[in-house]
């Protein structure tokens, strides 16, 4: 047998080799330039589409290595051409470099930093959040992928209910309260686009600790974002003046002073949530609402212990002064509104006339 290569095949082989060299050169050049590598997905999936592919980590946890190609195709990144190696930057070839993570959590906590590559502004915002603060000590604190997913990333607000259920993964109890609140019920039941979901009040990536003085003094403005919007409130037959009237009240003025002068000092003057509740806010007519007439006294007594049932009438209920809602205030106001100008004008004119007459008399005497 002739063991030499057939000379006729040489040009073909040369072509294959040249193509191979060209491909790897371009490919490695792309990686070095830190561009999201393209066209890697199909290559990776040739192994990772196997549902049985998995490995065991030193912690004893099983790490599934299966990627559902159909699900991946529906995710947000893949159709945009952002493929495996955009995040898995250290895996360039097969066999892969050895994974050195002890546990699945450790792997996630190291890997999510890849999000920063493209989403740097959001990543920085998230670093200011209460979650990032907690994460220093607590490995369970959420990182990007806990809310957004890792391989199968979808738009986080489609549908809008997804936002709250995402938070509910960890904040179960609060979600249960929210679910039955006037806001939550409208969101979940009717898909109402106007009611707030978690992120509308707490922020999205830079979620701050809501137990701070700062959050407390600013919280009424948070409610006012919607509740002072006349058009929005009009849709539901609600008054858009509640915030303005609150701001003039004993509680509201106190709050304004603390906010502008002593924003770091804790104060106990009531803010919206002290009376209406936080996640469990219900409509005033709901017998379970903390501000429903049946519960109002108990709500006042949280801060004013031992007050009698007359006390609740001291609250003017976010109403402007009117004969209908606040008759006593109405009469006192009407009395002073007429008396003050009357008295002051009369006194002023009388004194002016006296000054005039005295001056004229004095001038006459000196003539």
């Amino acid at each position, binding site marked *: 047998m002739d063991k030499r290569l057939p000379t006729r095949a040489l040009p073909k082989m040369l072509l294959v080799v040249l193509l191979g060299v060209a491909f790897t050169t371009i490919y490695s050049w792309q990686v070095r330039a830190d561009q999201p590598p393209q066209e890697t997905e199909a290559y990776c999936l040739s192994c990772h589409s196997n549902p049985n592919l998995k490995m065991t980590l030193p912690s004893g946890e099983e790490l599934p290595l299966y990627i559902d190609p159909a699900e991946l195709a529906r995710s947000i990144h893949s159709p945009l051409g952002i493929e495996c190696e955009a995040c898995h930057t250290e895996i360039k070839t097969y066999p892969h470099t050895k994974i050195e993570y002890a546990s699945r959590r450790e792997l996630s906590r190291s890997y999510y930093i890849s999000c920063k590559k493209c989403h740097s502004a959001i990543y920085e915002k998230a670093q200011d959040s209460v979650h990032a603060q907690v994460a220093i000590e607590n490995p369970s604190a959420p990182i990007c992928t806990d809310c957004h997913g890792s391989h199968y990333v979808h738009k986080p607000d489609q549908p809008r209910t997804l936002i709250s259920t995402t938070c509910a993964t960890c904040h179960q109890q609060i979600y249960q309260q929210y679910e039955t609140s006037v806001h939550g019920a409208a969101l979940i039941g009717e898909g109402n686009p106007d009611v707030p979901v978690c992120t509308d009040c707490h922020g999205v990536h830079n979620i701050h600790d809501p137990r701070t003085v700062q959050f407390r003094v600013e919280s009424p403005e948070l409610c006012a974002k919607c509740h002072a919007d006349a058009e929005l409130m009009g849709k539901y037959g609600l008054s858009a003046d509640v915030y303005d009237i609150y701001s003039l009240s*004993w509680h509201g*003025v*106190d709050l*304004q*002073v603390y906010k*502008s*002068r*002593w924003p770091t*000092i804790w*104060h106990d003057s009531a803010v919206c949530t002290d009376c209406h509740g936080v996640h469990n806010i219900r409509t005033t007519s709901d017998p379970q609402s903390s501000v429903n007439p049946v519960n109002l006294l108990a709500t006042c007594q949280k801060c*004013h212990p*031992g*007050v*009698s049932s*007359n*006390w*609740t*009438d*001291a*609250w*003017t209920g976010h109403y402007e002064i009117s004969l209908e809602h*606040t*008759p*006593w*205030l109405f*009469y*006192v*106001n009407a009395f*002073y509104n007429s*008396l*003050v100008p009357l*008295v*002051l004008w009369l*006194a*002023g004119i*009388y*004194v002016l*006339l*006296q*000054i*005039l*007459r*005295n001056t*004229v008399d004095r001038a006459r005497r000196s003539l």
Partner: protein
Amino acid sequence: MSEQEYQRARLHPAIHVERVFTRFTLSQRWEHALLMLSVVVLLLTGLPQKYRAEPWSQQLLSTPERVFLFQTVHRVAAVLLILVALYHLGKAIYQIARRRLSADIFISWQDFRDAGQMVAYLLFLRKQKPAFGKYNFEQKVTYWFTFIGVGIMILSGLVLWFPELVTRFLPGRIVPAAKLAHSAEALVLGIFIVIWHIYHVHLERANLSIFTGKINEKDMQTYHTLEYQRLIESPTSEQGGGQP
């Protein structure tokens, strides 16, 4: 001195005798001094609280401790005002019980006639001011406006001081009503005192009889003609009858 001594003293050309009349008792002068002190302190510590949302107020009430200080001083002055008011009313009740309360300060139809004539005089429709008694109608207006005003301030102030106690007995809606009344009445009273009272006792003429207790004969003749005539004509007819 008696009328006889007075006439005798005048006989000597080197002696100028000026008669001085007692206008206010020592007790009344103290009442006025303490009333004035408490009202000034109450206004100075109260107005910054009324205007807490204003920057000038926030400069004064610059810390929560300062707010507490102002509230405390306000309440101390309020106690003084309440004591003055109780003393004043107590004395009047005592005098009523002994049938010795003078009618001088009470408003009569004559005051309305006086007011009409005074306005006519001010409008150059009359040549002379009307003749007044011990208290002219301007002074009565000052007294009663302050009397009612202080009453409103004390009652509404107590509601605001002890709202939880007050609402055990009275409807809750008294609290916001008291807050509005306290705030509005303070302003009316303050401005009224500045316009009316300060003008009449300092600018029109320096009338310091509430401090000295005395009024000289010339002023008595000019400003309280009827009272002057009454005392001269029957100097012994009335002794010691106090005013409320």
